[in-house]
């Protein structure tokens, strides 16, 4: 047991080291790509808290991603930088508050109905923003200057510098991972996992499960807002697509592909999906076809996602050993 944990810890450390060393050898394109992947990894990890840990399959997670992005846009004047220290907390607050309100409404439903009502909200936001001239409508809106990290006259880092942006995002991804680890080990974390496995028993033990689910929803939504904020900061552009079901679906795919049984699974999923997309897009204009086939294959062959692959291999090896014996 502890041997595999040691291996895991080592692999994670190596991965962080590799990511930290990456800017030294990567060109501009790949630097931006990996930054984007890490932002999506934060998004996917936040959804995993809902789906993998609490057992709430939400197709509406993009709402909070979009809110984080659009808050930055709204707070960014056309030719100046918004203050990071004002706009980021604002984005998190908006996403978190929205999660509180929406969660309060949707968590009354369960099962497929829950999936659908979250889908309803994500589509509502999509259509609302599309129809809103103030927010740029279907054309979207630009953020011309990246947020400024100046505080008390000192600028500790500049998000306009690609390498520094990369490191900020890497730090945030690591911090998100650590935060989720801490939360999952806490009584709260154990409780939501209990809810995922057997909500009825949790209630009969005395847990007010609605409160737990709502808290999970709010934490996940706030983290999604964080991802959305930096997505907008990176590309300087927001559009209603950030709110729609496709964006929600992408996050869900990353979580499932990466495997819901682990915390690092969604990170794997994010890397796998985006890198695969880049690779396929280079090969053919009809890249969605092999992408679709890959997804189907992955679902059939990897019931626990990529993160569950070690476990699957272990079980397969054990079975082989038993057969040979």
């Amino acid at each position, binding site marked *: 047991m502890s041997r595999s944990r040691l291996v895991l810890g080592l692999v994670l450390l190596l991965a962080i080291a590799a990511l930290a060393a990456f800017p030294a050898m990567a060109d501009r394109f790949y630097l931006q790509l990996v930054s984007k992947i890490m932002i999506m990894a934060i998004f996917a990890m936040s959804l995993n808290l809902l789906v993998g840990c609490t057992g709430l399959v939400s197709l509406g997670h993009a709402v909070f991603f979009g809110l984080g992005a659009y808050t930055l846009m709204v707070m960014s004047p056309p030719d100046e930088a918004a203050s990071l220290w004002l706009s980021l907390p604002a984005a998190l607050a908006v996403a978190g508050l929205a999660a509180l309100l929406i969660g309060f409404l949707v968590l009354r439903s369960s099962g497929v109905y829950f999936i659908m009502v979250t889908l309803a909200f994500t589509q509502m936001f999509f259509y609302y923003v599309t129809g809103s001239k103030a927010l740029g409508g279907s054309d979207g809106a630009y953020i011309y200057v990246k947020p400024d990290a100046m505080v008390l006259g000192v600028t500790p880092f500049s998000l306009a510098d690609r390498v520094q942006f990369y490191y900020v995002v890497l730090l945030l991804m690591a911090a998100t991972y650590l935060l989720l680890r801490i939360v999952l080990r806490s009584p709260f974390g*154990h409780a939501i996992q209990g809810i995922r*496995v057997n909500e009825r028993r949790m209630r009969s*033990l005395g847990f007010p499960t609605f409160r737990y689910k709502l808290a999970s929803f709010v934490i996940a939504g706030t983290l999604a807002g964080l991802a959305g904020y930096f997505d907008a900061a990176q590309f300087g552009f927001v559009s209603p697509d950030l709110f729609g079901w496709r964006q929600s679906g992408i996050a869900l795919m990353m979580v499932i592909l990466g495997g819901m049984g682990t915390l690092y699974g969604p990170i794997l999923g994010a890397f796998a999906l985006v890198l695969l997309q880049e690779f396929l897009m280079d090969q053919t204009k009809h890249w969605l076809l092999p992408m679709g086939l890959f997804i189907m294959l992955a679902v059939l062959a990897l019931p626990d996602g990529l993160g569950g692959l070690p476990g699957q291999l272990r079980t397969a090896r054990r079975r082989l050993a038993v057969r040979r014996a």
Partner: protein
Amino acid sequence: MPEPVLRIERLSKHFGGLAAVSDVSLDLHAGGVHAVIGPNGAGKTTLINLLSGDLKPSGGSVLFEGWEIAGLAPDRIARRGIARSYQKTNFFPGFTVFENCRLAAQARLDSAMHFFRPAYAYGDINAAAERALALAGLESRAGAVALTLSHGEQRQLEIAMTLATSPKVLLLDEPLAGMGAEESARMVALIGRLAAEHAVILVEHDMDAVFSVASVLTVMVNGRVLESGAPDAIRRSKAVQEAYLGAAEDAA
């Protein structure tokens, strides 16, 4: 005679035209096992479900320490101090035995918002879980994954989880279900020990177990109470023999 811990008055539950439980009244006192027996379909499990909040009653009242609890949600009833065990083992298969109990003990925490300290650092909860495991006789299996337990051990875990919530009232729904002779004897001894500190309602089919541990018996037939009283009186009662015990002896 001290006040009953639980006073059930004219409790009923209808499903459409079917009266699963009708006009049931019962007093539960602390420090003894009150067994509820009856043939299949008598409404015993429905009664437990009504008391635990898993079902909402159609009529009647349930007073727990003077407070009306009929119709409350299961988690509110549980927090008041009434815990139930399930006939079909109802736990968290992937967690270890200890984790199952600790999770149950966590229900006693004042709030849900404990995000940062790891669960194993909560001394009170750990102690409650260990106590429950010791009472149920499962300390040696604390680290085993619940799914790998034998059937008898799983039934023990079911009880341990109920105990970990430090309840005042225990509603035990057929705890001996599917157990062999030796395991049953252990479980009966456990139930006897529990009666000292809790008020226990026991639903069971195993008559030997019931008569060896119960201090009061209530016989239910077709959703109603047929008779209620001390074990000897029930054993001698002609009505009960006809309705139930006779049939059981024929079958045995």
